[in-house]
């Protein structure tokens, strides 16, 4: 059972900042956003601004966006290409690898290197920066476990979204907008809430945007949880790997590239188990969507992928950052159609998204009152009163992915996510 006030509680938010986001690997950008030497984007981890740049030698770096002298932000744009960042306050300037190179009146003001040794001074690097399939993560804890260990077995599922060829992913965006909702709600929803689809998103089915006639199909899918992440799937009609990939709209040349990079077990999850990934969340606040709406005026569907960050602003406000993602080796037509499909479904104008956020804002507002402190929300879906499962977990022969998976409506993933959250904020 979940105390309702956790979705709008200032004291808890302070703990989340310090204990959770102070130690977790947090997504900031995808490498394809900074393809050229000198490209940069500016991203935040909670209140801390970082310049994420590809320096002139091609190395990706994350530098704390604060001048060593008086603390001014040295970069106030959110993206661009630069060889240097010059602080607007007193003109200290830094190379795009962070090295301090320019210091006006160095001799007059400091007596040169005698008073202030310029050599070796750099913008503060992020305590930890690492990437997986081009996804760049920052960790504010210098002693953090390696990213690969943090992600653990969830990497198996991350690959479905972020590795569809040797060329890797390219992203567009993000769209950014602020919602008056607690950041945890979206993260939990994307992690495992198949139960909300038939009701919340009934209008999408009504207008025939999806080929599957009934949103009830959702319950035939499986949810899975593996280490730091989990997600939802749809059950596919009978067929082999190619047939099932075609069913969700992948053209043959993409399928053959996918076969070249997915492991046999990853392919078995589609070919033998018949499950296709849909929404997912990687703890704490990174989510993914893969869906396949109909193309205009046809029964043909086309898949799209979206990456999204639930950037906490306060206990009752979240900045949503939503990227469109596509395999960079995909045909141009596919990229364009997939982008259109994304815009219709998700993001700031997405028709799925619109109804979700309405619910989450309302929930957050209500969770801020005193009655919410007396209410324990029921989060036991999928469990009988003696804690036996309503539906048994899938065996290894029926589900080739790591972790625990089961078919049908349940809240295993939300409970797993909340366990990680509770562990992080309480110690």
């Amino acid at each position: 059972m979940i105390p309702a006030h956790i979705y709008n509680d200032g004291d808890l938010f302070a703990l989340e900042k310090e204990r959770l986001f102070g130690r977790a690997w947090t997504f900031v950008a995808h490498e394809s956003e900074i393809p050229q030497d000198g490209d940069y984007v500016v991203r935040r981890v909670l209140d801390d601004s970082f310049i994420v740049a590809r320096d002139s030698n091609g190395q990706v770096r994350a530098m704390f966006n604060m001048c060593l002298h008086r603390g001014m932000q040295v970069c106030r744009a959110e993206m661009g290409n630069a060889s240097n960042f010059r602080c607007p306050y007193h003109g200290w300037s830094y190379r795009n690898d962070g090295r301090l190179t320019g210091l006006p009146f160095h001799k007059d003001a400091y007596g040169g290197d005698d008073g202030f040794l310029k050599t070796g001074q750099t913008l503060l690097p992020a305590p930890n920066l690492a990437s997986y399939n081009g996804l760049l993560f920052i960790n504010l804890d210098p002693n953090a476990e390696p990213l690969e260990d943090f992600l653990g077995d969830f990497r198996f599922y991350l690959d479905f979204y972020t590795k569809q060829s040797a060329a890797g992913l390219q992203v567009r965006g993000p769209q950014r907008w602020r919602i008056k909702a607690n950041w945890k709600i979206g993260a939990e929803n994307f992690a495992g809430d198949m139960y909300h689809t038939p009701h919340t998103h009934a209008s999408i089915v009504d207008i025939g945007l999806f080929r599957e006639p009934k949103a009830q199909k959702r319950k035939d899918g499986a949810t899975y949880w593996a280490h730091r992440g989990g997600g939802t799937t749809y059950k596919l009609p009978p067929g082999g790997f190619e047939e099932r990939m075609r069913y969700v709209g992948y053209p043959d040349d993409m399928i053959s590239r996918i076969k070249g990079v997915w492991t046999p077990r990853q392919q078995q999850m589609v070919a033998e188990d018949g499950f296709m990934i849909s929404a997912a969340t990687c703890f704490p606040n990174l989510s993914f969507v893969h869906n396949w709406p109909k193309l205009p005026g046809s029964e043909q569907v086309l898949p799209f992928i979206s990456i999204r960050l639930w950037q906490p602003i306060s206990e009752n406000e979240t900045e949503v950052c939503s990227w469109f993602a596509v395999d960079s080796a995909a045909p141009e037509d596919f990229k364009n159609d997939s982008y259109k499909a994304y815009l219709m479904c998700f993001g700031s104008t997405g028709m799925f998204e619109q109804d979700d956020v309405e619910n989450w804002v309302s929930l957050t507002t209500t969770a801020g009152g005193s009655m919410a402190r007396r209410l324990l929300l029921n989060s036991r879906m999928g469990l009988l009163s003696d804690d036996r499962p309503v539906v048994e977990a899938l065996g290894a022969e029926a589900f080739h992915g790591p972790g625990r998976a089961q078919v049908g409506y349940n809240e295993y993933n939300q409970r797993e996510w909340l366990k990680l959250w509770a562990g992080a904020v309480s110690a």
Partner: protein
Amino acid sequence: MRKPLPFNDIRHLQAHQFLVDEAYLLDGQHYEAWLDTLTEDIRYVMPVRVTTARGAGFDTSPGMAHFDEDKYSLSQRVARFATEHAWTEDPPSRLRHFITNVRTFACDDETQLIVESAELLFRSRGDVNESALVSCGREDLLRRCDDRWKLARRTIIADESVLRMQNLAVFL
């Protein structure tokens, strides 16, 4: 600088009236009637604005928009509002589209006009929720279809990089 039509030019008056009439349709969420004011080849785009250094040469996110619509996708959005399950607009928002700073430009093709306008959308939901604003500029292409003007192109330039509205279940 191109020169706008004088404000007493009949073409400007017609374009201005088009925008004001449209604002009333959008305020009232009369979306079927609004769709009828769009040409079949309508292109309706709202790029994502980004903060870039002066001289960077761009201020929109490469390849990314909030809206990038054609008649099909706009019709689907309208059809969704007409279902009984479009929760985000049930209860409906109270909307006010303020349109101002209208300038009209003649085109070589006399059946077309370019119209610029500034727009402020006020949106209120529920009783005590904070209201939300979107400020933007628009550049439209109107095309003469039989006896009336229709909207053939719209580019919406948002004035914010990060939108302060929970979604864009509205039209601008």
